[in-house]
């Protein structure tokens, strides 16, 4: 028997295994590893793109003063009915950059991997306050802005208009916004028209206090998501093979024969610009406790036209701050992606003329891209007192498309009376028919 020199067993090679030499100072332990030799889950995590890969911050506006590019004045305002800004001093007009092209948000959805978060959609710092003080770039005075509801203020010393342009960590500055297109007069007319169709049974207090001129233009916070996913569903489908009647005269009844099929579908798909409410309050669509579902109904917006953040657009409007992060909205996205997938599967189920019962389903999100946006909504509100704080009825007008939806409180006794009257008339007709 030949003698072999003793061999040392091969050392463990995976991540976290002991090494002969400690890594050099400043070197990350993972740097010395070749990612292609690592197990797939670890490799994928290592190679996934940086979560906050898209930097949308407006560095040129960081001093808080939005100067007119022509004369330097800060009297800059959104020109109603357009996407442009106008200088109130020299009347110069210009358009902000569209984020779609500037950051390539419409491209590469089919190649999305991991979770990509634009810088304005980053997680909100736990200790972030809404009340922020800013140093005026004109005179150096400290100006306080409550970012919960406003993003601009006038310096009380030098009268410069200050805007919150820096992407502060409380979620108040999004990546982009869509300027209002629908003007206030138009919104008032639409709300009036909506209510005129619902006057007869409306609550008296609502009709007495109805002043659509009190409508408020609000920029509401949304996350606009591009996603790539793969969904599976499995269930049973039935195809009718025969239909026949049994019995005669009064006892005639229809019977069916059917084939039962086991069905399974997989759909790989991409979704472009799906809007999700990124405020916990507005995202709560429970119709028993609020009427936020009507604001949800006026979606979608033409988010492709969104422009780079500039606080001057918000002058004269109010805004609501985002308070939800990507992780909070992930379950909602998964749910909506599943619904979209099921809708896309439906055309392939047409041969099952007795319908399909889906029993199991799954969504696998391959990649998502999150962009925080302020979207324009005209809101009219009426508070109906009642138990548990009452109910706030909203009428909402999409600030871009003009789509209008609302909730008009109904006078209960009028409704009951109308229902009983019609019920009685129909019943009387039925009795007359039987007695005849």
């Amino acid at each position, binding site marked *: 028997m030949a003698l072999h020199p003793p061999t040392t067993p091969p050392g463990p090679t995976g991540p976290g295994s002991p090494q002969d030499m400690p890594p050099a100072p400043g070197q990350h332990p993972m740097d010395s590893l070749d990612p292609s030799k690592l197990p797939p889950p670890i490799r994928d995590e290592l190679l996934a793109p940086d979560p906050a890969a898209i930097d949308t911050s407006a560095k040129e506006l960081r001093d808080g003063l939005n100067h007119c590019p022509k004369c330097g004045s800060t009297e800059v305002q959104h020109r109603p009915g357009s996407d442009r800004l106008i200088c109130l001093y020299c009347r110069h007009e210009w358009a902000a950059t569209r984020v779609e092209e500037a950051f390539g948000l419409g491209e590469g959805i089919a190649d999305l991997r991991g979770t990509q978060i634009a810088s304005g959609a980053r997680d909100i710092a736990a200790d972030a306050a809404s009340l922020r003080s800013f140093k005026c770039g004109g005179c150096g005075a400290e100006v306080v802005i409550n970012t919960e509801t406003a993003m601009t203020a006038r310096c009380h010393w030098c009268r410069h208009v200050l805007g919150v342009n820096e992407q502060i960590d409380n979620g108040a500055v999004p990546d982009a916004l869509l300027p209002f297109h629908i003007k206030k007069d138009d919104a008032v007319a639409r709300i009036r028209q909506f209510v005129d169709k619902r006057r007869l*049974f409306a609550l008296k207090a609502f009709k007495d206090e109805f002043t659509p001129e009190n409508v408020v233009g609000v920029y509401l916070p949304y996350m606009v998501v591009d996603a790539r996913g793969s969904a*599976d569903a499995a*269930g049973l*489908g*039935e195809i009718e093979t025969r239909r026949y009647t049994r019995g005669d005269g009064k006892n005639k*009844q*229809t019977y*069916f*024969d*059917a*084939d*039962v*099929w*086991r*069905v*399974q*579908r*997989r759909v*790989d*798909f*991409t*979704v*472009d610009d799906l809007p999700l409410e990124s405020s916990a309050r507005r995202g709560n669509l429970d119709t028993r406790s609020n009427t936020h*579902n009507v604001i949800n*109904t006026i*979606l*979608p917006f033409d988010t492709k036209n969104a422009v780079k953040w500039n606080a001057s657009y918000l002058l004269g409007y109010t805004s609501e701050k985002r308070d939800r992060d990507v992780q909070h909205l992930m379950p909602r996205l998964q*749910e909506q992606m*599943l*619904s*979209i997938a*099921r*809708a*896309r599967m*439906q055309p392939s*189920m047409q041969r*099952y003329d*007795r*319908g*399909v*019962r*889906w*029993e*199991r*389903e799954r969504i696998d999100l391959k990649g998502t891209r999150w962009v925080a946006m302020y979207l324009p909504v005209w809101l009219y509100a009426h508070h109906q007192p009642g138990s548990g704080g009452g109910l706030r009825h909203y009428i909402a007008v999409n600030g871009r498309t003009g789509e209008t939806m609302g*909730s*008009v409180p*109904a006078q209960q006794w009028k*409704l*009951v009376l*109308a229902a009983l009257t*019609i*019920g*009685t008339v*129909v019943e*009387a007709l*039925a*009795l007359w*028919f*039987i007695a005849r």
Partner: protein
Amino acid sequence: MDIDGDTILFLLALGPASAVGLYWAIYRHYRNTDKSHAFEHETAVEVLALTGVEADRKVDEIRGTRSPRIEGDNVGNHRQRVQPM
């Protein structure tokens, strides 16, 4: 005219049914509690691949049922969630 028992019951039920139906119709017209964003149809979706059609297979036959649809039909109810796989 000769009317059988079932038809009489049906005619008698018409009154209460129309009252309840009218109440709900008006209530919904005013309050719009059933409305929401139709994201399934109003979002730009691109289907990259749809597979599984070829794997459908017949597993059973039903004879003489009186129901015109499969029990628990949810092919058109996209938002109804079912068991995870």
